[in-house]
């Protein structure tokens, strides 16, 4: 897993609530047996119109916007457990998703793939979305060590929460398998002590 410490980037605003994982990556693209290529189909049915042409109105197709931070509406990532959603977002190039609320499974999947979910207050989210829409060149700074998200050259900032174990994993690029394998002795002792 890639290490994450601090990121400064422009951001793409997605003013939609309850973005579900079927929108992030539709089921018809889940047939691959590796993790490659999902970025090409992220938000597929919003990026392209029914006739296959590019939907210029969709934020990811708007030339004004760019960057590796996605700022989205409330309850992001609800629905299916498909980790393909996290692979699609990282495959497209995103490193951070900001929202006022994340669905549980998506949040875990994101953290397991070096994609940082930053949960902010509704007020801050609104301010952030407005700032980006008014000035798409605005850069956002995400400092994981300090747990602060801020807008460059302004006093707009907010602290965010992250599980201290997961924070250590993100900063060092560790994943849970290494930790769990180091617990093999305890796991076997548990099995011997329990009749399941």
């Amino acid at each position, binding site marked *: 897993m890639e290490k994450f410490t601090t990121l400064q980037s422009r951001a793409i605003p997605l003013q939609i609530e309850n973005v579900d994982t079927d929108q992030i990556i539709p089921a018809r693209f889940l*047939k691959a047996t590796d993790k490659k290529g999902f970025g090409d189909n992220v938000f597929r049915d919003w990026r392209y119109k029914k006739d296959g042409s590019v939907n210029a109105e969709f934020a990811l197709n708007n030339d004004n916007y760019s960057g590796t931070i996605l700022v989205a509406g409330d309850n992001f990532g609800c629905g299916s457990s498909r980790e393909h959603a996290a692979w699609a977002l990282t495959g497209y190039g995103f490193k951070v998703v900001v929202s006022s609320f994340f669905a549980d499974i998506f949040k875990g999947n994101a953290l397991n793939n070096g994609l940082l979910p930053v949960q902010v207050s509704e007020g801050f989210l609104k301010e952030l979305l407005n700032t980006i829409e008014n000035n798409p060149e605005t850069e956002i700074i995400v400092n994981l060590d300090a747990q602060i998200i801020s807008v460059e050259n302004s006093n707009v900032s907010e602290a965010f929460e992250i599980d201290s174990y997961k924070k250590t994993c993100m900063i060092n690029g560790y994943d849970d*398998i290494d930790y769990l394998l180091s617990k093999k002795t305890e796991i076997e002792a548990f099995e011997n002590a329990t009749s399941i």
Partner: protein
Amino acid sequence: MSKKTLFDKVWDAHVVDTIENGPQVLYIDKHLIHEVTSPQAFNELEDRGIPVFRPEQIVATADHNTPTQNQDQPIKDELSRKQLEQLSINCEKNNITLYQLGHKYNGIVHVMAPELGFTQPGMTMVCGDSHTSTHGAFGTIAFGIGTSQVAQVFASQCLLLTKPKSLRVSVNGKLKAGVLPKDVILYIISKLGTNSGTGYFCEYAGNVFEEMSMEGRMTVCNMSIEMGARGGMIAPDQTTFDYVEGREFAPKGEDFDKKVAYWKTLPTDEGATFDQEYFLDAADIEPMITYGTNPGMGIKITENIPTEDNASFKKSLEYMNFKAGESLINKPINFVFIGSCTNSRIEDFRVAANYIKGKQKADNVTAWLVPGSKQVEAQIIEEGLKDVFDAAGFELRQPGCSACLAMNDDKIPQGEYCVSTSNRNFEGRQGQGSRTILASPLVAAATAIAGKIIDVTQEIEELELV
């Protein structure tokens, strides 16, 4: 001794270790896998030279990406065929039991595992599928995981997790005739909202659930994730024990009796506290339908679509081509789907057949019936339900996830409405541009007969429901 909830008791019995100020190492008893969310996990282990730790605690099935016709023939779609072949190779290499396409135990992972007695009270169970919450119907901690976590369970039979908060939804009173478990859960989600359960594990309590069959309890727990809860649970009782007894992987004889004695200790202690509680009245529930693009956007079939001044709400109605304030009664419907891990058990087909018997499907409707497993399919035939469906013009297909997520060829065409017994009405869920209306098997059957949405409550008096 402190009072504990059902969830606490099962969770605490599975904690291997606790990281200071961090997550806990939770032991997983049973791991279910399928073709879509497992291949990358097998690759991960292979790349890192890590063996599968406890293959005997894993069961695999092919369900998400399988055809529901001509299952005895090679799959035409190359990518789908390869995905299934990969599952077979991975299972064989790692000594994992696989019920592949055509096997008498094949079926949707959340239908076949309880059917085989693989699911038992007091266990921890996971699967790379969010509707793993289904198994909570047995008093099991069961939840969906991502593929990285599938790899973790392969490697260690454990997961690193922070214990979720506790939530209890109590529904007491008498359900009206024609109100099915699906209506109960759609009602709960419409009242509490799609993210009300996020961060929680939910227990369903009250006489409504106590009186429900295991099939009904599975329908309810299945949709826990649609209100954001990682899982839902119902206390095990005699109904649960009777269901489990005698099944293929269930404990037998003295072992079974010992287990039952343990399972009886699991229900929530009187006086145990929950982080959040809701109380709902069974008498207020009616047959439900959804009008929007998330499962929380549900109304009683007799109600009008509400009006909300909110961009996401408007976007949703625009997608569905519905207007705020209008009724859905008499809306023409061309597609009906009875199936999915929510409603594809024998009881669901009995309800449908009971309504359909002696009637004829409307000409405009394509009606697909997709059983949850080979065993359900066999039972449909054995009980003579297939004859009812054939005579009425319904199409009984072979088992699989099918049009619930439309990964295979069972897709609802662009712009068409589908009254569906599945669990998600997201944009394009049943095929690009398709419009899903979630409902019970009774409402779905009635829609197929009428060719439009009708007020089933008008007919309920005359109905002899199973």
